[in-house]
């Protein structure tokens, strides 16, 4: 690839990185924010490769999506924030709170 094409690719990936970071901060629900955070990790891994460090690329790819993302989901599940069960015993789905937003209520504040 020509150097200009590499520059354009790098700049567009950096813009995508900033967009993913902003998006995972302002999203209202938690589970989509975590999905965007995993994609942030993936873009980071490609940027490490463009910076000529292959060790960092392998480590970030394995750790960012494979371990860190999975740990977030496990913690959310353990805190009962992901309650949607698609398969139930009597054929009824039980969606109560699906990736609830910010832990505070909308109308009641402590002032």
């Amino acid at each position, binding site marked *: 690839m020509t150097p200009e094409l590499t520059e354009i690719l790098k700049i567009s990936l*950096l813009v995508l990185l900033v967009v993913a970071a902003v998006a995972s901060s302002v999203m209202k629900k938690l589970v989509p924010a975590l999905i965007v*955070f995993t994609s942030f*990790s993936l873009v980071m891994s490609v940027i490490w490769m463009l910076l000529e460090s292959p060790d960092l690329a392998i480590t970030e790819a394995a750790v960012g999506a494979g371990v860190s993302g999975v740990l977030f989901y496990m913690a959310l599940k353990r805190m009962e924030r992901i309650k949607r069960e698609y398969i139930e015993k009597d054929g009824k789905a039980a969606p109560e709170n699906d990736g609830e937003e910010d832990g*505070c209520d909308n109308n009641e504040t402590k002032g």
Partner: protein
Amino acid sequence: MGNLLYNYEEATALILFSIGFVTLLFHRNMIRKLIGMNIMDSGIYLFLASMGYIYDRRAPIVEGGDTNPVNYINPVPASLVLTGIVVSVSVTAVMLSLAVRLYERYHTLNLDEIYAMSRRRAEHR
């Protein structure tokens, strides 16, 4: 302005740091603070590793017995960041387990409510 337009990679890394910092400050949900902290970590690592990059040079793996340092990028920042990435995931794991334990005790993820409840609990003792 100086070299701001030429240093776009470092500027993006610092913008990421600021985004993570703002996320850490503004949200009251514990999980969002953790996401913000991870973004801050990634921004710092990007800043550090982009100091080692030099145009038109290869990765620091010796090919064909050529040990002339003119052909390779700076390998020192990459080795510092390699440690940092794994430490960042350990810190995230410890903080997530703390969040799980806090949720079990107070049944909320909102830090303000946790403060208020713990203060009330301390008063009642």
